[in-house]
């Protein structure tokens, strides 16, 4: 049985200690909080105007719509933070020379990678939960209705799942590209993964052959081999905007594919890491 070494736990907590000091994350956290608070104030103003125009029930609609919009905004910021942390995660160890010291302990390279990924993931998910809870509390007060429903919980689970491969992909690109390029390339690549998932989730093979293009040929392996973050995002949006509709059975297939493809992705990144001289 492949057990974790005792070093794993210490590297995991060290990652949290390291990333919690990341100024970019604190800047984005403050910015997100300000955006939520300011837009909530605007929402209150709109609610008052709606009341003056005696639009019965409009308050509820206005209250739920911005929450969904904020969900999308926070989702985007979470992806940005995940990429920022991912790009920095191993490359900052390399820059400071700490990786040499950490890897001289009896720790396997994949354990070092997974500990760094999970530590980074914990930080991004904490940011995400904070932002969502803040938005939900403020909008619950504004709309006088409790906003922390199943759809928010469902979104939280899915975004947590999306963050994990995003970090791993950013780490992979940081092996080959300077930090800034790795950041933008990861951002572009994650958008491409979403495009691939959108394209192929509804398309049958004969349709693909009829509408074949260069982009689709590149997008197909991305859709098949990488975690379908775009599909998870779509599932969240459909639950947020149509809460009455049941979750599609396709979602469970996507989850199964997610687990296998994430394991494959981590294996590939570990393989590259193992072959790197430090």
């Amino acid at each position, binding site marked *: 049985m492949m057990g974790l070494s005792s070093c794993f736990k210490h590297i995991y907590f060290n990652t949290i200690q390291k990333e919690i000091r990341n100024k970019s994350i604190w800047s984005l956290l403050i910015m997100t909080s300000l955006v939520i608070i300011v837009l909530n104030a605007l929402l209150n103003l709109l609610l008052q105007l709606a009341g003056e125009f005696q639009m019965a029930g409009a308050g509820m609609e206005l209250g739920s719509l911005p929450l969904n919009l904020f969900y999308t905004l926070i989702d985007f910021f979470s992806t940005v933070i995940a990429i920022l942390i991912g790009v920095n995660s191993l490359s900052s160890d390399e820059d400071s*020379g700490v990786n040499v010291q950490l890897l001289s302990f*009896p720790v*396997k390279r994949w354990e070092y990678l997974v500990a760094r990924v999970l530590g980074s993931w914990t930080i991004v998910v904490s940011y995400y939960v904070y932002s969502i809870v803040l938005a939900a509390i403020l909008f619950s007060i504004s709309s006088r209705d409790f906003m922390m429903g199943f759809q928010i919980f469902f979104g939280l689970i899915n975004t947590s799942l999306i963050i994990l491969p995003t970090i791993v992909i950013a780490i992979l690109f940081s092996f080959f590209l300077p930090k800034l390029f790795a950041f933008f390339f990861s951002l572009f690549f994650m958008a491409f993964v979403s495009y691939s998932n959108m394209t192929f989730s509804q398309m049958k093979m004969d349709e693909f052959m009829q509408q074949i293009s260069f982009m689709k040929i590149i997008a197909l392996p991305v859709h098949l081999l990488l975690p379908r973050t775009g599909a998870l995002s779509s599932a969240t949006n459909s639950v947020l905007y149509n809460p009455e509709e049941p979750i599609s059975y396709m979602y469970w297939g996507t989850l199964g594919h997610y687990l296998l493809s994430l394991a494959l992705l981590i294996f590939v990144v570990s393989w590259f890491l193992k072959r790197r001289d430090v």
Partner: protein
Amino acid sequence: MNVIDAQNVSKNYGSSRALSSLTLSVAPASVYALLGPNGSGKTTFVKSVLGLVRANSGTILINGIDSNDPKSREGVAYLPEKFNFFPYYTIDGVVKFYGSMKGLSGSELDDRCHLALKTLGIDDLVGKKVKECSKGQLQRTGIASMLMGNNNLLILDEPFSGLDPIAIKELKDLLRSLKEQGKTLFINSHILSEMEKLCDHAAILNKGECLAQGELQSMLNGKSLEDFFYERVKQ
């Protein structure tokens, strides 16, 4: 069984050869010096021993275990040439981190940390952050970190770098006492005067090739290490 057993180790970085069929053995409880000018392949060899660099060919066994297996590093402590750690850590935090990575915890971790800091004369620096430390203080912290855990092989890459004469003397005394405790010391250095007084075995590397190796006094045959080294490297 030798603590380090390297057979025909070669390493290339692109077209440049860093190590060329290097073979050497380090016996238990010895002080082995790996000597050579800058760029001779000393650090590459140490990194190969630690599995940080993958040799292109050859094998390295640490206590009988292949160096590519992380288990081979269980009884090994390493001091890199430029010891560094996260700037927000305190000196005692660094030493404790090393201890916990070596499986120490609770009061044993605290006691060993206190003893290591005291041995290196930096127990008065408890609470001082890495970013506030001088190079010498950082080097002492690195050496203190090596004392955590039950390591039988201590690998030091240029350990005297950044230390003042007092600290060099204290470090040599410490290394001698570690040898007396049965630890094996493998030291990379180009400060020949210090190594001559300290080591009992040595190898001389130049351009990745081993020019000489063996028990120090029989290898020198009455010459000073400096003269012997100069002759071999300039040949």
